[in-house]
């Protein structure tokens, strides 16, 4: 298994942990609420397709949490700044789960540096009209074993014991959980008005979804696709909320096909 070495960069006065690997057209990968693991095969696949830029969101991983950050708005503006700082152009912007929400918030603000948009099992919008209905399974209220069962098609395969984690990995897990709460406690992992601004997304968009996802169901994914003009919707079998983990190669191939990325042989 290849490991992508993250490095620390400066974004304004704050430290941002970032994987910057491969070359060619930029592929910006925004992780979900569980953070990013440099050992994920999907990162190698994507770095074979172009220049992979994969940050840990402020507050996640080893990225600093600026004291004034409190919403996904802050993340969207921070990444618009990062696009400028790195002079990324015609980027393929890929976001999974929380990262999908951030990607959409970026795109409704500006698509100037985005060529293609990929939203995978994204949280971020409100679909249900019944006030008592939850679109997104509550990862803060469900027992961890229930979250796992909803998030993975094969939970046992991906489960890691704390005993197998280094102290630093445990600290990162704790930071990730805290940051997810900061950005998504209430309203729960969505922006109630985001759907009304999705018409501003004027780039080809692919909505990728794990067929077995029970954190955000495929129907919720279809609502994303319906909200963005011309968006494609593609299901990935044998995957739930983390298709980039459970079906890494297929995930990368779908992105390559959609965005017209040739790349090297890994994908």
């Amino acid at each position, binding site marked *: 298994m290849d490991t992508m070495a993250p490095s620390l960069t400066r974004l304004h006065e704050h430290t941002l942990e970032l994987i910057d690997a491969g070359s060619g057209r930029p592929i910006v990968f925004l992780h979900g609420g569980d953070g990013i693991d440099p050992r994920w095969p999907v990162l190698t696949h994507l770095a074979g397709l172009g220049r992979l830029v994969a940050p840990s969101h402020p507050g996640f991983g080893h990225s600093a949490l600026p004291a004034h950050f409190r919403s996904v708005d802050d993340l969207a503006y921070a990444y618009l700044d990062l696009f400028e700082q790195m002079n990324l152009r015609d980027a393929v912007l890929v976001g999974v789960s929380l990262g999908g929400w951030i990607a959409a918030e970026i795109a409704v603000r500006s698509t100037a540096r985005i060529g293609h948009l990929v939203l995978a099992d994204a949280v971020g919008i409100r679909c249900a009209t019944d006030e008592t209905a939850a679109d997104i399974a509550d990862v*803060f209220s469900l027992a961890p074993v229930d979250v796992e069962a909803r998030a993975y098609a094969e939970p046992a395969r991906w489960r890691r014991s704390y005993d197998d984690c280094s102290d630093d990995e445990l600290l990162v897990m704790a930071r990730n*959980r805290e940051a997810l709460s*900061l950005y998504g406690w209430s309203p729960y992992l969505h922006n109630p008005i985001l759907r009304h601004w999705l018409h501003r997304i004027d780039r080809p968009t692919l909505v990728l979804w794990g067929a077995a996802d029970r954190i955000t169901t495929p129907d919720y994914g279809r609502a994303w696709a319906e909200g963005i003009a011309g968006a494609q919707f593609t299901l990935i079998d044998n995957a739930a909320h983390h298709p980039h983990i459970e079906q890494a190669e297929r995930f990368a191939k779908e992105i390559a096909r959609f965005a017209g990325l040739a790349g090297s042989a890994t994908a």
Partner: protein
Amino acid sequence: MKIWQFTEQAYFPAWDPAHESLRNSLPNKFLDPQVAAGLYSRYTDEWQLCDELGINIMVNEHHQTATCMTASAHVPLAILSRITKKARLLCLGHQIGNRQDPVRVAEEIAMIDCYSQGRYEMGFVRGGPFEIWPANAQPVGQTRRFGEAYRLIMKALTTHDGPFNWEGEFFHYRMVNIWPRPLQQPHPPAWFVSIGSGPGAWIAEQRGKLGTFLTGRDSKILFDVYRKRWREMGWGQAPADQLGYLAIVAVADREEEAKRRAHQIAGYIRTGAQLSMHFFNPPGYVPPQANAQAMRMSTRKDYVPAYATVVMSDGSRVHQGRATIDQLIDAHVAFVGTPDQVYEQIKAYNEFVGGCGNLLIMAQGGDLNHADTVDSLTLFSREVMPRLQALPLDAMATAA
């Protein structure tokens, strides 16, 4: 030494070990409102008896739980403000880091202080981790929100020259101008709770009263932190009246009967942890470093975190929820026995901590019935309290 009676007003009929959680998620179909109505009357009668016995009253609040039916501390305190005559009325307390409207809290404080002719004492608490869900309060930054709510409440209580503006990190008001204003000037005494040693210094800086619950020998550590900071502030020795300790208290003519009563009251401790594990640890409630450490320890067999234990006289630690009554007595967590025994136990605790001016007694808890509660409270007031008044307090603190 001031004495305060406390009960959680438990809905003990729903205490079934088969329930995974007694808090947060237990459906309220397990509460019979007719039974609840009867229990509220009974618990109120017991507080009213305390007033007649010369015992002060403390009320707290918890939410969505069979362990405590006091969903609003101010509801019983408002009632007690009119049906009691002498008792001080302590709210310990408001979870102001979770509440959405601190100004409303200030208004209620002022009202109850007036209703009670200035017998009200206010208390501000962070609340247990599981309280995050019923309040739906963002757990990240909760201590900062607590601090801002406290500053806002104090300013609302002490500002008398017209509306002021508040635009903070968490709260926004354009015209704060509460009516009425508290009867006690400049404001009723303020209490805070410390279970770990973290907040003690800050509480001292506020000149607040520090209460600690069921912490046994560890309470001395908390009191020392407080007294040290008080001295550093240049205020000399902190009066013992600034410190309070809550313990289980059961008195009877016979030791065995007192222990039986204590066992029933200690149902509070045994059921307190009957809760799905993940409700104990909302994200951000403790720093990531502490959470990482908790994850590391969680896979160790039979690991019990220090906060869930009490210190025995031989220095060993015992799991609070599994401790016997004899162990709880040894740990100063419960004062139990005949009046003579209870007096000696409290005297020993007072000496150990270097003087504690407020004893908060949990003389009702769990399914202890009305007759036993009345008997225990009456014996305590007649046989123990007069002797406690002679205990040295401040003199001991100076020596400590």
